[in-house]
């Protein structure tokens, strides 16, 4: 299976789950609103009835940010900060929760969306995915250590020089490498999630390491998909940014259009997330050898799709890759 086939297959899978995507976007937005609304409320509270608000909307003044910080310092900030931190933590847990349902729905290509199945997936896989996230820290940590080592090396080579272009360029290169390393880990975690769902396994640690090996051994395919999706993201951002800059600071019509465009962009990103999981689902059977009877491979009929996960559950041992 080629990268483009995987993308096409993922697009088909995702197209079947439109309602699920809307639900995913909705809950995501709801969680984000829990953080955004109180924060914005506090920030804007001193402007709601002030004529300064209209002035700021016309031309933003940096000094207002400090003014509002000074105004909040006395109490509201201290009160709201723990709340916001808690909300961000819940947002984090919530996004793990939702991904369980989403991956399940993408793996299962039976009849159309059933909300019950989605929520079941959310609950069923939450703890495994959470553990997976914790294990992923090992890889992210390694990537960060690597980044620091590279930075140190660059610093040793050029840090004390008379010119700053070498170190600046080195900094860009190191940032690029770090992004690719993070992408690698994140892709591996996508495969790990798919594996936990298709195998209905609880072994998150094995899934994490197995998927990491899988991604590294099939670098072209797995990261090829990532690259294509990044191109999509760049196109979305390229469309969004100029439009939003043009819509900023306009009247009611422009504000509403901007809100619409923003949510379209967010929806585009939700789609990309689904595509990433969907592509992992597509590629998974091809990159992960199944422990088949070694003598009679010819007899295995070519299945139109992967078998339902229930069949696989517990039927096979954890495959070693």
């Amino acid at each position: 299976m080629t990268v483009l086939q995987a993308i096409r297959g993922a697009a088909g899978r995702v197209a079947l789950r439109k309602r699920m995507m809307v639900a995913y976007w909705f809950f995501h937005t709801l969680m984000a609103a829990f953080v955004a609304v109180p924060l914005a409320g506090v920030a804007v509270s001193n402007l709601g009835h002030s004529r300064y608000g209209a002035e700021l909307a016309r031309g933003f003044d940096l000094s207002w940010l400090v003014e509002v910080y000074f105004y909040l310092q006395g109490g509201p900030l201290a009160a709201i900060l723990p709340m916001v931190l808690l909300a961000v933590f819940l947002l984090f847990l919530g996004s793990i929760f939702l991904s369980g349902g989403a991956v399940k729905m993408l793996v299962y290509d039976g009849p159309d969306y059933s909300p019950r199945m989605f929520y079941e997936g959310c609950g069923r896989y939450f703890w495994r995915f959470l553990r997976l996230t914790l294990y992923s820290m090992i890889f992210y940590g390694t990537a960060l250590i690597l980044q620091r080592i590279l930075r140190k090396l660059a610093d040793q080579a050029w840090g004390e020089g008379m010119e700053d272009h070498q170190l600046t360029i080195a900094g860009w290169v190191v940032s690029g490498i770090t992004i690719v390393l993070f992408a690698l880990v994140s892709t591996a975690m996508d495969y790990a999630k798919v594996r936990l769902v298709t195998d209905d396994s609880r072994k998150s640690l094995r899934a994490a390491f197995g998927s990491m090996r899988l991604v590294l051994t099939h670098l072209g395919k797995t990261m090829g998909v990532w690259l294509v999706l990044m191109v999509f993201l760049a196109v979305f951002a390229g469309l969004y940014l100029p439009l939003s800059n043009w819509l900023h600071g306009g009247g009611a019509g422009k504000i509403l259009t901007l809100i619409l465009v923003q949510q379209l962009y967010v929806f585009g990103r939700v789609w990309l997330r689904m595509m990433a999981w969907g592509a992992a689902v597509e590629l998974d059977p091809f990159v992960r050898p199944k422990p088949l009877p070694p003598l009679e491979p010819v007899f295995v009929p070519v299945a139109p799709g992967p078998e339902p996960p229930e069949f696989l559950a517990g039927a096979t041992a954890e495959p070693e890759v």
Partner: protein
Amino acid sequence: MRFVLALLACVACAHGAMSRQVASYDIKATLDTKTHIITGHEVLTWVNDSPDTVPALRLHLYMNAFSNSKSTFFRESGGQLRGDQFKGDEWGWIDIRKMELDDADLTGAIRFVHPDDNNADDRTVIEVPLPRPVKPGETIQVSIVFETKMPMVFARTGFHKDFYLGGQWFPKIGVWETAGFRYSTAGAWNCHQFHANSEFFANFGKYHIELTVPSPMVVGATGELKSRTESRGRTTYTFEQEDVTDFAWTAQPTYLREERMFLADKETTPQEVAAAAKLHGIPESEVRLSDVKMIALVQPEHREQMERHFASLRAALKWFGLWYGRYPYKTITVVDPPANAAGAGGMEYPTFITAGTFWKLPPESRLLEEVTVHEFGHQFWMQLVATNEFEESPLDEGFNTYSTSKVMDQVFNGMGELPLRFMGVNLWKLLGFPGLRSNSMNRAQYLLFPSGDNLLRPAWQYYNSTSYGINSYYKTGVALDTLEAHLGHDTMARVMRTYHQRWRFRHPTARDFQKVANEVSGQNLDWFFDQFFFGNRQLDYSVGDVINRQQRTPLGAVDRNGKRVVVTRKEAEAQDDKNDDNKNFKKQYECTVKVRRLGDAAVPVEVWIHFKDGGTEKRTWDGQYRWVKYTFLRGSEIDWVEVDPGRKYALDISYANNSWESDYNIRLSTSWTMQLLFWIQNISLWMTSLA
């Protein structure tokens, strides 16, 4: 007193000099680039232009601030200044090998003194008792043999690889302040130790410096290059400058050195000259600028930014010149220090400034222009008007912040963008952030610490270095903006020019500026200076309660045609209902506005009350009590209220509470909340893809 001084001044006035040349230096110095040591012989010519008999000399040995971690400079700074850290073991120091007056050897009599903090380990000020006191009007010549070890550069002066910046590098005499001079009540030396948060103070004089360096070095310095002679791999540069307070130099073999001429008649239009002459009521000949040779020493990797340095100098020479008076020197040199020597950047010396930039600094970011204009501005606020930077840093940094912002906003349309880049991508532009206006940046920084200190304090006595920075630079900038809004542009322009012209080549104090401001404006501005310059009052006006009460039929015993009639509740309600149904009935409202003074600064302020019928009531409140109440009986409710509608008081710590309007700004809250939501959604989706 001043009359006596004026007479004595002639003693110090050399032929053709613009200043009283009290302390002049003739130095021959050689730089050894292997040891980073300068060996020098200095002849200090000092004129006692006071009516006092001076028994001893005091000199700065600034370089000893870098001699060890026990110096006052190191104790205060912790070995880091303006974000630059002292690393490694290349310390700096200065030793006086021999000191003679006439034929008397003073070397043995030198002792270290610590007038500011009694730190016995600080060796930045010496006192030398003289064999016989210096009489009023007498001139002495002191011969000093010295050796200066340059430190690794992190605070203005020192070296980095083969880059050298020589500042505060030679023994420099303090300022004898006789009674009546500045704040002095009795004759004494003003010779402060080298502090972390402080710059310098010196008399004017004539400098003749012969500096010998290895021949490959490209050299720049204060003043005009008079000669350049080479012998056996070494080159001696002779620089001269009259009417300055200091001398600094730089050397680096790889500098790109270029010159351009500032041609006054090309840079200014006749209309600009005429407008300035008219504004100040002076002849055009007095306004006209003079030609200046601009020299730039730029790092090779900043080659494409060469012209930006000249453009900044042009803008500054022109506008500072037109506003305050022509730049009187023949040269100005701007230095771009290399990477890892940023501590040497952003510094001012007479006719010689250091700027700073980054590789590929985008043209939209005006950091280079801002720092160049600012450091040039010190030629006016520090050099020409030579205030005491130790004791009144706002007079140099703050006045310069105010003037620099004006040039930046006028010529470069503000600060532009910040260089916010990720992997070379300009995020500032990508995300559509707006351009930055300088005065708004000043206010933003002022708001970080608005009234924790008096604006004016000895530089090392502010709460911390942040407060030093905020008060010396930004708060003063905002305070002068406020003064300008109060006086109007033209009056403020006259105040500034008068102050500059009156105190050019002299040493004023903040009180002298206050006097000029009062005199030129014809107003008593003491309330302003007392609260904001010499005090630490916080300004915060706010709209308090706004109440619109519709007039109802009066209840109870009322007089009607001379008879007492009791109007019952029922009758009144019935009458009110009737009135409400009657379209022609003119409703009356009792509208009350309370304006509050939340801060402890009290200033006269305008209050505008706008009604829904389109009318506006304007009041002026003296702000003396904590609040004021205005009541109106009108046929319409209040639409909005604004305190200080002209935004005169940029010192007000909150613009948001200065106004109130009846309609809630739903458009703003919706669009900002949705904007924030959008960013949090994005962050959350990144978290999802990483988790």
